[in-house]
């Protein structure tokens, strides 16, 4: 078995009287794809926001490799090698696709001479094009990011995260809003990313996507982890079935 790259232990997050995450623990193996699933409002995005430092956990510990992430600011966590995408894409819309990806390079460092030297060194452009090629967007490099179709924007966001050469890649509902065809393509890209040695944690509302992609699955419901295991075992877990189907209709309409 590979080493544990990421651990969250007993993470609790409250917003006023509402407990969004309650004593959640997960462990992720290096080089695997780990999916967190659950109905809407289960606390999946909150978990991501806690891990990436947007929120600070009220209780619990979060580790990446040997270092703790708890209490660090978002950009510090990013510099340690945690990259993420967002449920609704957050691109730098007025900037070109190339510039979006270049901003990911170097994890936010301002290299020597960065005050003076342009961002588009040959080395940077080559790396950015290489990353764009991985998501199939090398032809759109000079397009303004905001003008691309939504599916392409998702891929730019993924490329931007990949450009950071992260150790841990957090994908927040990567297939949301995509056509079936686009979703299948994206899943393939995610697998390729994993194959380069990057550990992937994804949050997914759509169980089929998550089950097809993940090596390991955790299920959240109302902020609590109710099941964990391989896709097959989780799929048969009665708690999970209840969470998804039992209150399915009413749960959806509250979203």
């Amino acid at each position: 078995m590979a080493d544990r790259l990421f651990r969250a232990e007993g993470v609790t997050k409250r917003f006023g009287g509402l407990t969004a995450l309650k004593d959640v623990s997960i462990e992720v193996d290096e080089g695997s794809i780990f999916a967190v699933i659950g109905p809407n409002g289960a606390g999946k995005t909150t978990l991501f926001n806690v891990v990436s430092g947007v929120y600070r956990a009220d209780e619990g510990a979060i580790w990446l490799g040997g270092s703790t992430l708890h209490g660090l600011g978002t950009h510090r966590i990013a510099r340690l090698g945690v990259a993420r995408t967002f449920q609704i894409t957050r691109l730098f819309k007025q900037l070109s696709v190339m510039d979006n990806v270049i901003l990911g390079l170097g994890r936010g460092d301002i290299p020597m001479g960065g005050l003076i030297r342009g961002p588009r060194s040959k080395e940077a452009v080559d790396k950015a094009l290489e990353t764009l090629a991985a998501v199939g967007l090398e032809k759109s490099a000079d397009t303004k990011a905001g003008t691309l179709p939504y599916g392409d924007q998702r891929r730019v966001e993924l490329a931007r995260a990949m450009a950071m050469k992260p150790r841990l890649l957090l994908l927040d509902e990567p297939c949301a809003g995509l056509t079936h065809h686009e979703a299948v393509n994206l899943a393939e890209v995610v697998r390729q990313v994993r194959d380069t040695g990057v550990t992937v944690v994804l949050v997914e509302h759509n169980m089929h996507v998550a089950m097809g992609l993940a090596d390991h699955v955790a299920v959240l419901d109302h902020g609590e982890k109710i099941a964990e295991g391989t896709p097959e075992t989780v799929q048969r877990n009665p708690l999970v079935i209840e969470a998804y189907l039992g209150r399915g209709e009413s749960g959806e309409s509250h979203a």
Partner: protein
Amino acid sequence: MLYLVTVSTMVCIYIILASGLNIITGYAGQPNLGHAAFFGIGAYASALLTTKVGLSFWAAMPLAVVIAASVGFVLGIISLRLREDFLAITTIGVNFVVVSVFLYFDYFGRALGLGGIPRPSIFGHVLNKPEYLVLVVFLVAAVLLVCWVFSRSRLGLMVSAVREDELAAHSLGLNVTALKLAAFVFGTALAGLGGSVYAHFMTFISPYDFAFPVSITVMCMVVLGGAGTFWGPVVGAIILASAPEIMRFIQQYRMLIYGGLLAVLMIFQPAGLLGADSVFVRGGARLVARVRGRVVQSG
């Protein structure tokens, strides 16, 4: 000829101010409706350092820049805590408060202002207005060079990323705090430089020279030319600073035109004359494309 020299000098000062505001509002996307406060801080610092402390222009000017930038740093820290609209009100407030401080403390000459500010001298020769303009043109060239480098540097790209989406910038490891502060410091430093240049040009200054309407004028220049573009503020400053001089008939209607222009531009052409979505830029691009097309056809 001194008339032209005067107008040109003022245009140059406005180019410096507008370029500075463009760093803060155009590139970093932080509203700053109190730019004239930093213009004033630079002017008063330079005036006091030369008249009361006895420094020369050459020593006072960089110090004025540093002082304005230091206050800008404080505003930057404040900006980190505030939402966009609250920051806008706060910057307006800063302008009012700074002008009041000039007005209400004897040290700043109160309503009488500060007079007797020397023109700079080189090897004992005091620069006259045309010679001073030459100096100012050099300064503008230096400012534009720095801004040009900034706009094409990795730092400039990162600052633009902060404008576009702070959270996304954070998640890429960009130190948003430092980048915002850098923009505020850089932009207000330029305002301080403009202030110093102004003080030694006018040789006397009074608080109302730096009142809120001046901030609005500079904002108009940036927005008219195109915020976040390199040439936009320059073009805006040239147009708005020289238009009332060239067209005397608009004197009566100057503020009417400014105000109307600002509102209409923001509604229909928020990117300004040189901004990305501007009809002028698109029209120009189309024209270039058509000319090229013809060349290709004929060739």
